[in-house]
């Protein structure tokens, strides 16, 4: 009997793994992405449900309570959270996965410390899972603004961090050797501490890369747990964990590298340089900032043939996307062609601008990639830069600049450039931007929401 049940369960796991892979594949193309996640979700549900039929389980009440709390909590939280808080949400749920992996490893080690192969694998899973949960929580706190998003740089941190890691792992290994579970306690404490220390010196703006890396790490932790459990209670479900975990581990590692590359950083640079803490580079810039007021800016845009709007991080923090949509609609009503130039790493997460503008109801076919739109700037009357800085910084063309090599939007070639920002704040990379000092550039100061709001009222008045 049990054998048939086991076969049926295994079949479900095999199918689930198949669908996960197909789902992930589908998720890497824009047109198939939604279908991918829905299928993967169905497969996951199935895999979780059949697990209840695994032979020898007890504790069903507790399991139900746990699944209910976590499931409803996660569902609710993810539904109500604002779109702009998505990155920290991903960080949080990812951390939960790492925590779960660490906890499973703990249960396993408490029960079967004597099986050296399994415990070693569990220990490895616990190391990685603990780092992932602690680090992810710090990332969450920083992005949520419950903790300064500035890099926090402790003295001698490389030495201290390494020491914490080594001593922590040492406690774990000692527990395996002397077969005494007590030593797992300091092991976990130190590993969690290490995760915190590792993440503190990283600035908020680097967080997408960090989250992606912790995501990959959690995958690996899950895979290691699966490894450890294959011969024990889990059987082939262990393989499903190994596959899903390693899959995410590999995919996530690659994604981390791609993300870092897209913003012209290296991963080790993100983790070990405390970028943004001290940096203040940039050659002295010639020229003057020339302000413009909302009325004049509105007139310039209203009489333009074509306006290209370049949104950046400032638009996101000011939540100005609705106003921007109104502005675009008004301009179009006046016969102006309005396009949006979207830089891939504008904002603070990949695809940030697309997500916000789409949310505000701006039609997707007005959004253009760098490659699609760069050639159009020379023929554009007004380029309106809203809270963007690095992605339009011509310093990227100059060797020696920290931005050197980053592909930028060639805004400076437009006939007129209007830049909205609050003051003289630098961009994420901390580099001066001489675009702002050019002859054809005017500065429209103020918070993006207010400033664009004023433009909107000016335009309405003019009608």
């Amino acid at each position, binding site marked *: 009997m049990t054998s048939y049940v086991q076969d049926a369960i295994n079949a479900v796991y095999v199918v689930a793994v198949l669908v*996960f892979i197909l789902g*992930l*594949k589908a998720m890497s193309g*824009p*047109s198939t*992405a939604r279908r991918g*996640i829905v299928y*993967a*979700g169905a497969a*996951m549900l199935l895999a*979780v449900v059949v*697990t209840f039929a695994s032979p*020898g*389980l007890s*504790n*069903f009440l*507790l399991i139900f*309570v*746990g*699944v209910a709390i*976590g499931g409803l909590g*996660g569902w609710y939280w*993810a539904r109500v959270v604002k779109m702009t808080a*998505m990155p920290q949400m*991903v960080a949080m*749920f*990812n951390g*939960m996965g790492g*925590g*779960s992996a660490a906890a*499973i490893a703990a*249960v396993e080690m*408490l029960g079967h410390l004597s099986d050296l192969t399994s415990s070693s694998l569990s220990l490895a899973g616990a190391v990685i899972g603990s780092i992932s949960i602690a680090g992810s929580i710090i990332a969450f706190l920083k992005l949520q603004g419950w903790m300064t998003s500035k890099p926090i740089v402790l003295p001698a941190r490389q030495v201290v961090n390494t020491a914490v890691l080594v001593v922590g792992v040492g406690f774990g290994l000692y527990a395996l050797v002397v077969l005494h579970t007590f030593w797992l306690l300091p092991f976990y404490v130190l590993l969690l501490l290490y995760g915190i220390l590792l993440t503190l010196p990283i600035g908020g703006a680097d967080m*997408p890369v960090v989250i992606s890396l912790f*995501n990959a790490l959690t*995958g690996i932790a*899950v895979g290691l747990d*699966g490894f450890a459990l294959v011969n024990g209670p*889990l059987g082939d*479900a262990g393989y*499903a*964990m*190994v596959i*899903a975990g*390693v*899959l*995410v*581990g*590999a995919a996530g590692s*690659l*994604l981390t590298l791609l993300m870092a590359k*897209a913003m012209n950083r290296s991963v080790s640079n993100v983790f070990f340089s405390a970028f943004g803490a001290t940096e203040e580079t940039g050659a002295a810039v010639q020229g003057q900032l020339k302000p413009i007021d909302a009325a004049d800016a509105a007139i310039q845009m209203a009489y333009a043939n074509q306006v290209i709007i370049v949104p950046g991080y400032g638009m996101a923090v000011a939540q100005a996307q609705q106003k921007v949509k109104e502005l675009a609609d008004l301009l179009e009503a006046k016969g102006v062609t309005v396009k949006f130039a979207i830089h891939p*790493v504008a904002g603070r*997460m*990949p*695809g*940030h601008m*697309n997500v916000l503008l*789409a949310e505000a109801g701006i039609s*997707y076919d007005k959004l253009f990639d760098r490659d699609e739109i760069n050639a159009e700037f020379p023929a554009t009357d007004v380029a309106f830069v809203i809270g963007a800085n690095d992605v339009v910084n011509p310093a990227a063309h100059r060797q020696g600049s920290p931005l050197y090599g980053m592909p930028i939007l060639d805004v400076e070639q437009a006939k007129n450039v209007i830049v909205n920002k609050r003051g003289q704040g630098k961009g994420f990379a901390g580099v001066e931007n001489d675009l702002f000092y050019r002859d054809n550039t005017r500065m429209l100061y103020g918070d993006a929401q207010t400033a664009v709001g004023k433009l909107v009222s000016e335009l309405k008045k003019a009608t």
Partner: protein
Amino acid sequence: MAADIWTALFIALLAAFVGYEVISRVPVLLHTPLMSGSNFIHGIVLVGAIVALGLATTPLEDAIGLVAVVMGALNVTGGYMVTVRILAMFDRSKGKGGAP
């Protein structure tokens, strides 16, 4: 026992390749949903957590197992929901082609 580790190694090796190949040509635009989607997929950890709690014998194991289940369930449902919401934002993409 020893043999199964080798089997698992084979599996891990292949899974790593699949993961790598699947992601290797993804547009920047999809990095965030993809990160979130893969976050959801390691939610399979819930399966392990259920088994761990289901086989727990001491109160301490029960407690840690419960934590594992709660966290695993948070991972899996939250990860799913966030991904669906992010992708919903991209849905207007219909008009404009996109990848083949």
